[in-house]
């Protein structure tokens, strides 16, 4: 009953979405405000029905209703409850429903928070969102119905063991909030093109929403990377896997969009480019969905490949992307370009940022698609893997990384490069010091690692130059400067933190790439191996059986300076329902570095093969992204950017309390 209700709700949501696709935009053309306003109600209705539908699916997972094909295929009655719930989106149908649920959430957000928007802009935006909703709801109903029934089965076929992890609870929702979050900026871009004008309300709105999507996407990608690192069991944290690239592409163009929207908001320049980027960013999200869902690329993310689904998503993709770009070519000339600036200026720096980010996105895009297209045309297979990306993407990004600290210091319109260079002297000195120090401890000939670390330090220290300078530490007393530092706009802090985060991540990447060690060894019981400053002793070997898997693990004591500091149990699991083995690495954190133990083969008399990695400063890779996410939150908390904040200037709470204390 509940299952059928979920199905019905999905149909109703689709019907409402079709209505919202037509009525509000009809209103803007005929100038009828009542027609425009219907979208406010219908989008809430859509959200309601999609929520009911999603809840119904989740319920059937929670109670392990194996008369539902989708639940039977992807769940097991003996799984922990959390994994039963998260299994809802650990499959094609469910994850598409989550996708649409988040789309509906963002559509409702425009209705709820958009009361300050010009009515015609709001109606057009809501109509575009409804087009997306209707299309994807139709896709689910026609090709990926999660509510299909079958004669009830006794036991389910289990969830893919790799997905039986807390990561599945966080990674997909975060990632989708990011992916789908860019649908708002897309809808705004299309609405602007339909209207033929972009005003300040447009820019004020687009930037915070870009920030929200970007922040979630950053968190989602980072989470996915850490998940792959600990779950796949061979210590890699980024594989340039096509599916990872599919999530990285919208991040790159989204980051570019973030910066160009800044220019547009502050200086009224780069309008056309910003609109194009908004279209491209969401197009890349759609492309990612297509690549992952169609089965064109095979990976752990591809739950099932079905040609009809592939064709359907390809049609959606070409319809929206093609349509949007066509509209862009047709109408973009009507948007006025404004705001002139010199090459060396804040605007110029942001153009440079956009140039590099776009080029790097194109590099990743072509690397991802080339093998697929090449095989389609020639029937021969080639690989494009990590060495290609490391070389090309790395080379393209380096100039941007060097330039990052300069950007925020440059003045709008025309900047003074020489004066700024002087302000970055301190960062330069720190970077040089880091290069020398690292160089002294590295083997000769390894010049790349010290330079990489120097670049990371340059980024981390240089990012705070603006904070330092605007607080006036050189001009006034320390007390006044500190007070001024606290009063700086949050956006200044957000910029500094985000850029610093990139430096922290880079430091982790360089350090792991250059200084990681790998030891593969066979240990008899009570035998030891020395890895760097650690000694690892094999204490024994055990087997056990859990609810839905069996496990074999080795016990490894880890000693440092003769004292035991940790006990590791790297293990291998076997999931009988899927006949699938997984490797559970044992990871031990020391500061920001980690010792990573993976179990290999086990010989008859208890000899275990161990792969041991020392990963120096690896946690910085993710810590940097956490700093970036915090930066996103700080920026969103800036009063001037807060969604729905009235344009009229009000006293901030801080000023109020200050004046209160004076009175």
């Amino acid at each position, binding site marked *: 009953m509940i299952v059928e209700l979920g199905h019905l709700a999905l149909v109703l949501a689709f019907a409402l979405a079709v209505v919202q696709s037509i009525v509000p935009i009809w209103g803007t053309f005929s100038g009828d405000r009542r027609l425009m306003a219907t979208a406010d109600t219908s989008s809430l209705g859509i959200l309601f029905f999609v929520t009911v539908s999603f809840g119904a699916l989740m319920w059937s997972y929670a109670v392990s209703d194996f008369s539902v094909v989708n639940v039977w295929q992807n769940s097991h009655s003996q799984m922990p409850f959390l994994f039963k719930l998260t299994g809802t989106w650990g499959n094609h149908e469910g994850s598409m429903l989550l996708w649409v649920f988040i789309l509906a959430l963002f559509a409702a957000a425009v209705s709820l928070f958009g009361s300050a928007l010009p009515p015609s802009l709001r109606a057009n935006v809501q109509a575009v969102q409804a087009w997306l909703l209707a299309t994807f709801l139709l896709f689910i109903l026609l090709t990926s119905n999660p509510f299909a029934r079958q004669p009830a089965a006794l036991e389910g076929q289990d969830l893919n063991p790799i997905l039986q992890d807390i990561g599945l609870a966080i990674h997909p929702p975060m990632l989708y909030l990011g992916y789908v979050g860019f649908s708002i900026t897309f809808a705004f871009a299309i609405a602007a093109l339909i209207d033929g004008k972009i005003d300040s309300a447009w820019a004020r709105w687009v930037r915070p929403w870009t920030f929200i999507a970007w922040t979630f996407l950053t968190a989602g990608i980072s989470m996915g990377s850490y998940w792959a690192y600990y779950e796949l069991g*061979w210590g890699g944290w980024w*594989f340039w896997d096509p599916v990872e690239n599919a999530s990285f592409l919208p991040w790159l163009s989204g980051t570019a969009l973030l910066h160009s929207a800044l220019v547009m908001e502050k200086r009224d320049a780069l309008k056309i480019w910003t609109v194009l980027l908004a279209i491209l960013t969401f197009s890349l999200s759609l492309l990612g969905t297509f690549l992952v869902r169609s089965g064109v690329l*095979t990976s*752990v993310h591809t739950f099932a490949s079905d040609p009809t689904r592939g064709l359907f998503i390809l049609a959606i993709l070409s319809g929206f992307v093609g349509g949007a770009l066509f509209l862009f070519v047709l109408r973009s000339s009507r948007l006025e370009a404004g705001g*002139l600036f*010199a*090459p060396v200026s804040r605007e110029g720096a942001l*153009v*440079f940022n956009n*140039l590099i980010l*776009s*080029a790097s996105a*194109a*590099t990743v895009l*072509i*690397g991802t698609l*080339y093998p697929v297209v090449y095989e389609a045309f020639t029937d*021969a*297979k*080639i*690989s494009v*893997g*990590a*060495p*290609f990306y490391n*070389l*090309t993407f790395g080379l*393209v990004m380096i100039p941007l990384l060097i330039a990052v600290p300069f950007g925020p210091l440059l*003045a*709008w*319109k025309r900047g003074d490069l020489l004066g700024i260079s002087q302000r970055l002297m301190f960062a330069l000195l*720190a970077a040089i010091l*880091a290069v020398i*120090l*690292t160089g*002294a401890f590295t083997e000769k000939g390894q010049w790349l690692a010290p330079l990489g*670390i120097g670049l990371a*330090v340059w980024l*981390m*220290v240089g990012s*705070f130059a603006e904070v330092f300078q*605007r607080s*006036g530490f050189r001009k006034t007393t320390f007390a006044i400067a500190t007070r001024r530092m606290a*009063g700086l706009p949050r956006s200044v802090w957000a910029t500094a*933190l985000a850029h610093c985060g990139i430096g*922290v991540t880079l430091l982790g990447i360089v350090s792991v790439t250059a200084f990681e*060690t*790998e030891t*593969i060894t*066979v240990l008899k019981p009570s035998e030891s191996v020395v890895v*760097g400053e650690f000694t690892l002793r094999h204490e024994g070997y055990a087997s056990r059986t859990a609810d839905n898997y069996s496990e074999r693990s080795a016990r490894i004591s880890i000693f440092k300076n003769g004292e035991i500091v940790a006990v590791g149990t790297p293990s291998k699991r076997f999931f009988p329902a899927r006949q699938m083995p997984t490797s559970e690495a044992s990871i031990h954190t020391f500061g920001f570095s980690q010792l990573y133990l993976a179990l*290999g083969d086990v010989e008859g008399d208890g000899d275990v*093969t161990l792969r041991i990695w020392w990963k*120096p*400063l690896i946690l910085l890779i993710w810590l940097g992204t956490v*700093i970036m996410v915090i930066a996103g939150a*700080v920026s969103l*908390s800036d009063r001037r950017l807060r969604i729905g904040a009235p344009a009229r200037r009000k006293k901030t709470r801080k*000023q109020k309390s200050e*004046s209160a204390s004076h009175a």
Partner: protein
Amino acid sequence: MLKRIATCCLFVLLLLPTAPAFVAATATATAAAAETRLSPQMEARAKVLFLQLRCVVCQNQSIGDSDADVARDLREIVREQMLAGKSDDDIRNFLVARYGEFILLKPVFAWHTAVLWLTPVLLLLVGGVLAWRVTSRSPKSTSSAMLSREDEDELQEILRQHRN
């Protein structure tokens, strides 16, 4: 909020002196017992090669990263060839003749991959020229009276104090 930011600054400063500490660990890559042992220099050279070769049955993994049987066999082939005195290029060519170009994670630069390799370069060039033309359209129109940002902040500070 501020406390968090302060912690972050502190963290950056603290990090600087630790830079050399982790460098001390030296690279030690030992092959598993079942695999041929090479001299450290040769093993280091082999490792670089391993990371450029695809484990042909795996999901986008190099033979250096995978513990699949095929990957182990391929590693052994590479080591044997190295012991026979073959150069890196020889080994790559040998493997390509056997498994096709699919085995190279970094595609060769040739006519059939020119688009792949040159697109980034071309985009940077074309984009760079376009960006330059946009930004230098009217270099003289930037003489409005604006305060420098330090002055602006100082002004805000003074105004705030005045208001209180």
